[in-house]
């Protein structure tokens, strides 16, 4: 029987190789744990270890690339979010300023103010006109003054159904009757072009020579002419050129026209009785409570 098997194996080298390998495998499987550990450690150290290290490096490289791509995506999302938050912050600051303006506006005038957003600002370096998102449907009319917390912007020039065009003080056709707050010197302010100021400058021409005008004097609307109510800030005196009979006063606008985003239109009408008062009261309360919270008061 064994001789027969031996003959068969000798004649079939493939089968004998297989039987040899199978036998060796069974021997390996039957080895005591200590011997298995030894053989494994030898094989791991010499062959499997380097291959596995290579394999791990490949896997990690792939993972690092994936992680990198994910981090890039997150970075882009965060940058977008941050940009939106910065916009919100600035909008918040602007709205706070506007709320403060609304509260501080002289109560006795009870003027109706319609807030509007600037939607377009055609023109180059000099702001020639502005478009706002309120129009006829909001009961706006031509020549209504437009203001911001820092001062006068201009007046409404054209009205459409749901938008209007403002003629700002920087427009070449603009002219506003003003006076200096301290010396009560009157004149008509006209824009000047080519000035170095970012806000833009204007000029009060043909003022009587030796009038009481000093640098830094506040220039406000005089109320003459019937378009602008008196007392709205226009700018500050930055210089004066004295002539033999007249003097020319240079004024820097209080408003930076290129950055205006939100405006108020003074309708000239008295607000709905009680409505403006209520609004002012509510805003004032909110502001006071916010201020108290900031100062740590109960």
């Amino acid at each position, binding site marked *: 029987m064994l001789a027969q098997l031996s003959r068969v194996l000798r004649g079939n080298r493939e089968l004998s190789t*297989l039987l040899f*390998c199978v036998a060796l*495998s069974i021997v390996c499987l039957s080895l005591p744990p200590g011997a*298995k*550990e030894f053989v*494994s*450690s030898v094989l791991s150290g010499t062959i499997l270890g380097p291959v596995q290290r290579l394999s791990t490096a490949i896997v990690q490289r792939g993972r690092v690339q994936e992680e990198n791509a994910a981090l890039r995506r997150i970075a882009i999302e965060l940058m977008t979010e941050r940009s939106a938050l910065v916009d919100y912050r600035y909008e918040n600051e602007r709205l706070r300023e506007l709320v403060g303006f609304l509260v501080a506006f002289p109560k006795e005038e009870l003027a109706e103010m319609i807030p509007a957003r600037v939607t377009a600002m055609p023109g180059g370096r000099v702001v020639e006109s502005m478009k706002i998102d309120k129009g006829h449907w909001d009961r706006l009319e031509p020549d209504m003054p437009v203001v911001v917390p820092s001062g006068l912007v201009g007046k409404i020039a054209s009205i459409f159904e749901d938008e209007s065009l403002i003629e700002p003080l920087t427009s070449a056709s603009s002219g506003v009757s003003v006076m200096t707050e301290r010396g009560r010197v009157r004149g008509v302010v006209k824009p000047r072009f080519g000035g170095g100021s970012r806000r833009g400058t204007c000029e009060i021409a043909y003022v009587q020579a030796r009038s009481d005008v000093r640098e830094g004097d506040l220039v406000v609307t005089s109320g003459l002419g019937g378009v602008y109510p008196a007392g709205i800030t226009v700018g500050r005196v930055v210089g004066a050129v004295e002539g033999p009979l007249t003097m020319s006063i240079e004024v820097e606008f209080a408003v930076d026209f290129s950055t205006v985003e939100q405006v108020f239109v003074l309708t000239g009408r008295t607000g709905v009785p009680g409505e403006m008062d209520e609004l002012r009261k509510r805003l004032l309360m909110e502001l006071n409570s916010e201020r108290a919270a900031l100062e740590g008061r109960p």
Partner: protein
Amino acid sequence: MRTGRFAALAIAAVILDSAVAPEIEILGARPDFLVLLVAYGALVLGARPATIGGFILGLIVDAEHPEYLGLHALSLSVIGFASAAAWEHLVRGSLFVQICVLFGAALLHDLIYYLVYYRNHLDMFARFFVRFGLIGAAYTAAFAVVIYILAQARTWRAIVGGTRV
């Protein structure tokens, strides 16, 4: 020369098995690149080199799990021999035959592996063999298509050298 190529491909197969296979897992089943190598090694090199190659490759892989040292060696050497026997009697150039041989080789490998691994829990053996063995074998066999395409593109000869017909 052929042995050197086989060794290089063996290293590649071990790397693919540990680095790529887990990434392309389907329903918990992975393609077995070692079986793929041994089965095609049998086609190219013949029964004896495939059996010995399968044994050595299996023993190296077994070093990862000392408790079952010899188990992969056993199954892969049997695969080498069985595949060579199958190639001997079948039309090697047919894609269908290649798929069938690979499927059978992968199934046989899992049969031996799970049988020894779960020798004391035959219910577990049946569950794992059906759950992972069958899908894994089909998945491995699907790679025959890739290799067939490579061979058709005449890359096969560049990779493994001339076949032993």
